[in-house]
C-alpha cells in the first residue's frame, strides 16, 4: 500500500505571546513543530504500513526551506520518503491555491491512501484536506478517530459532534486525521541517524509539477481570498478587579453582581 501523509510545519501557537507595548505578535524564539493533527496522521500511516506488507509511507510538506526539519522528523519516526514543495512562487497561497499545488505534486506520486491532519493550529481552516481530495477527484473521509484495514478497503471511524459514522471506503481515498487517531511515536536514535544520513528529502519547485499546475492557480495571484487587514483584538472594557478581600467579602461582591444583573 502506498501512503502519502501531507504535513505542515507550524509555529507552536501556544508559545506565541503578544507584546503588550506594541500589541504585535512576538514570533522570535517560538519553536516550529509538526502540526499536531498531522503528526497523528504520520503515526496512523506508520501503523497501516506495519499491517500491510510492502507498504511505503511518503511524507510531503509545502513550506519554506526550513520545513526540511519537519520532514526529517517524520523520516526519523519511520517514514520512507520525503518531498518538500518549496518555491517563492508558492508564497501567499490561500487554501485553494495550496491545495492545487499539493494535488499537482501528489499526481506525480503513486498513492492508495492520502492522510492529512484535520486542521493546522496556525490557520485552523480544515480546508486543505477536502480541497486536495476534490482536485484529485477521490473520496474524502474527515475527522478519522480510528482507521482499520478490512480486505482491500478501509474502515474509518468518523467523529461528528453528536455521532460516529463507521465508514467503508475503497482506495484511492483521502483521510483527515484527528489527534486522537494515534499517539505519535518518538523518533528512534537509529531513525534520526537515517533521517539525516541515509534518507533524502526530495525538493520540488513549481517547475517539477508545472505539467499539471496552471501558474494562474498558485501564490497570492492564484488565491481567490486575500487578507485585507489584520489587527489585534481590542481588549474589552475592564471591569473592577478586587484584591485583598476576605473570602466572605469576595462572595458578597459576587452575590451583589448576581443581583445587579438579575441572575438571582
Amino acid at each position: 500500500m502506498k501512503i502519502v501523509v501531507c504535513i505542515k510545519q507550524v509555529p507552536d501557537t501556544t508559545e506565541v505571546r503578544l507584546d503588550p507595548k506594541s500589541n504585535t505578535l512576538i514570533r522570535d524564539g517560538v519553536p516550529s513543530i509538526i502540526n499536531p493533527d498531522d503528526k497523528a496522521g504520520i503515526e496512523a500511516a506508520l501503523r497501516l504500513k506495519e499491517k500491510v506488507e510492502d507498504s511505503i509511507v511518503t511524507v510531503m510538506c509545502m513550506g519554506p526551506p526550513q520545513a526540511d526539519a519537519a520532514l526529517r522528523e517524520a523520516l526519523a519516526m519511520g517514514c520512507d520518503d520525503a518531498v518538500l514543495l518549496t518555491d517563492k512562487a508558492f508564497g501567499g497561497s490561500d487554501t485553494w491555491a495550496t491545495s492545487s499545488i499539493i494535488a499537482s505534486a501528489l499526481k506525480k506520486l503513486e498513492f492508495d491512501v492520502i492522510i492529512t491532519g484535520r486542521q493546522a493550529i496556525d490557520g485552523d481552516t480544515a480546508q486543505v484536506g477536502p480541497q486536495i481530495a476534490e482536485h484529485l477527484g477521490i473520496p474524502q473521509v474527515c475527522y478519522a478517530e480510528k482507521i482499520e484495514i478490512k480486505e482491500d478497503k478501509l474502515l474509518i471511524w468518523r467523529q461528528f459532534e453528536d455521532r460516529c459514522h463507521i465508514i467503508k471506503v475503497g482506495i484511492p481515498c483521502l483521510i483527515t486525521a484527528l489527534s486522537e487517531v494515534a499517539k505519535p511515536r518518538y523518533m528512534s536514535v537509529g531513525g534520526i541517524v537515517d533521517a539525516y544520513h541515509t534518507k533524502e528529502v526530495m525538493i520540488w519547485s513549481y517547475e517539477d509539477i508545472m505539467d499539471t499546475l496552471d501558474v494562474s492557480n498558485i501564490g497570492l495571484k492564484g488565491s481567490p481570498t486575500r487578507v485585507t487587514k489584520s489587527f489585534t483584538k481590542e481588549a474589552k472594557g475592564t471591569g473592577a478587579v478586587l484584591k485583598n478581600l476576605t473570602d466572605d467579602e469576595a462572595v458578597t461582591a459576587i452575590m451583589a453582581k448576581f443581583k445587579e444583573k438579575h441572575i438571582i
Partner: protein
Amino acid sequence: MSKDIYVFAEQRDGILSKVGLELIGKARELADVLDQKVVAILLGSGVKAEAKILIEYGADKSIVVDHPILEEYITEPYTKAINLILIDKQPEIVLFGATSIGRDLAPRVSARIHTGLTADCTKLEIDTETKLLLMTRPAFGGNIMATILCQDFRPQMATVRQGVMTALKRDSSRKGEIEEINIEFVASDMNVEIIRIKKKTKKSVDITEAKYIVSGGRGIGTADKFDMLRSLADELGAEVAASRACVDNGWIDKNYQVGQTGKTVRPDLYIACGISGAIQHVTGMEDSELIIAINKNEAAPIFDIADLGIVGDMNKIIPKLTESLKKSKRIEGMV
C-alpha cells in the same frame, strides 16, 4: 450577475441545526444592506416540512432537495447537490455552519466551483463602497484577527461557528417561496458506505446552548475540583465548562472545552475559575454578557476582559458562594 445570499441549513435526523437559523438571521441583515434576498438550502430525506420554518426565521425562500440518499451526511451527494444549485442560481454569498458537516462540505464545494472560502468567521459585514463581503476571523491561534475578501470569484463563501451569530425571533406569519429541486443521483455518488451509525448516547451537554456557565482552568489543580464547580453550577442552573488545559490533562471531556480549538460560547454569565485567560480561551468566551473571574494571580490576563475580577483562592470562595446561593434561595422561599 450573481445575487442573493444563500445559507446551507443543516439538519440531522430531520431536526434543523441552530447554526443554520443563526446564519439566516445574519444573512437577513446582509441582504437588507445589499437589497437582495435570503435563500435557505435544505438537503435531507423527508424534510420538506422544515422548509417553512426556515422562512419563519427570516429566509425569503427555501430550496429543498428531498432524497433518501441525503438522509445521513455523505460528502459526495451533498457536494453534488449544493454545487448544482450554486451553478444554476449564481448566488453572491453562501454561508455554512462551521460544524463537522459544514467544514467537510464547504471546502469540497469551494474547490469544485473554484472560489474562495473563509473558515470560522466571527464577523461578517458588507463594505459600503465595494459591496464586498468583509469576512473577519481569528488566526494564529486567536492571537490576531484578519479580515478577508474574495474579490474576483463568486460566490463569496464563509463558515461560521454556532453561537457567533444571532437567530431572529421565529415569526410564523412570515411568507416565502418553497422550491423543490430534483437532483439525479447515480450509484457512483455513493463512493463511501456508512456501515454503522453510533449516536453518542451519553447525555451530552451542549455548552453552546447554556445560559450560564461555570468554567474551570488549569488553576483548579485536580479533576475532582470539577465536583465543586458542578455544585455551584447546579445552584445557578448553569453548565460546567473548561479550558483546554483541563481537557489535555484528562480532567474533563473535550465536549466541554471552550476556546479556539473547542467551542465558542456567549452565555449571560461566565464564571472563569482558575483560568488564566490565554487568548486561545478568551476567543471562545469573550462575548459572554457578564464575565466573573476568580484567580490567585492578579496579573492573569483573564482580568483584562472580566466585568468583575476577584483575586483570591477559588477553593475557598466557590464553596462559600454555593452556600450563599443556597441560603438566598431559602430566604426567598420563606417570603
